[in-house]
């Protein structure tokens, strides 16, 4: 995936959290990241694939993309966000 940094300024592990909690965690934590910084959020709730890009649109943040994630106990996606304001 292009445009994605090797390491994000904030890494959030939301594995096992059901909707709407991954987005709630994002809402609680994103203000701690400076403008232009990035967030990587790991989630396995199915709704996250729709709701995280929707959150970016509604909150004026930039959605950079997603990539599949496979771990020892399951699979999900890692989502990348750039903080805009």
């Amino acid at each position, binding site marked *: 995936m292009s445009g994605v940094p090797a390491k994000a300024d904030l890494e959030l592990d939301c594995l096992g959290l*059901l909707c*709407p909690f991954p987005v*709630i965690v994002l809402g*609680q934590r994103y203000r701690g990241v400076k403008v232009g910084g990035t967030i990587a959020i790991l989630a396995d709730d199915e*709704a996250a694939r*729709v*709701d995280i890009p929707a*959150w970016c649109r*509604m*909150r004026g943040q930039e959605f950079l993309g997603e990539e599949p994630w496979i771990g020892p106990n399951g699979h999900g996606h890692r989502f990348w966000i750039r903080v805009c304001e």
Partner: protein
Amino acid sequence: MILDNAREVTAECLDVRADEVTFTSSGTDAVHRGLLGLHRGRARIGSRVLLPGVEHSSVLHALDWTGAPCTEIPVPLTGRVRVADVLAAREAQQDPVALAVLQTGNHEVGTLQPVAEVAAALADLDIPLFTDACATMGRLPLPGGWAVAAGSAHKFGGPAGIGLLLVRNRARWRNPFPTDDRLDVRTSGFENVPAALATAAALRASLAEAETVGARQRALVERIRAVAATWPDVEVVGDPDERLPHVLTFSALYVDGEALVDALEREGFSVGSGSACTASTLTPSHVLAAMGVLTHGNVRIGLEPGTTDDQVDRFLAVVPRVLAELRARVGL
């Protein structure tokens, strides 16, 4: 004879011919028979089906059952299909297309679809259109151009357990199920005659007051939409203009759909939701997902013909307070 009468009244209401009307055992049954029969009738031409992701689950299940290859027509945030996207979806395929599917309106978000325009564009390519008219039948005039359509009686105040299958005489439709040796070969079993008659009467009554009731509901929904758009972190869903008169949907950030539905219920409002947290499957509404709108904190309201201004006022006063309370629990 009574059945013929019911058929004629129904045909007149929907501006089709009486021999194009079949009473089925439900709206779902009408969708299945209509869609699968059109697909079978086109078997010699092709198998692929074009459809947007916002179609009703009865359509998705029927197509899944056939195993036919499907191509999704993308939709913008409003959920309203664009003719150019239909044509692009067609052009992207090498194999022949059996048919396309497009609902008249969406039951969850209220968006109306440009059925006549899409049907006309597809007619130039010799591709017939199946339309699921369940959400609009009895409320809005049936658009033209489709080959096969389906409706559901209880949606317009008719009895439950009866659906309407409309097959245009020019359509190449073949029974997808074993034939029953009856007068109307498009269905099976003995028709529920009293229910068919009640359906025809309900359809006529519903259409007679549709314009008056629809205008009132439209004005109320417009007011709710305008106010809801000012609530913080709330997205009003569905096409702002091309929509069903009585349906309103919005999604609120950081709110559990089930908690929101329960809280509104305690305040006396009965609402639906497309949020995963309200469903046993943990899967969010496929309609909201196809549109790319927030799936959590989702609320769907269907206005009754008798919904009053006062009820709407109270709703508009209650929702922001409920949202603030629910968000406060998670510090947002």
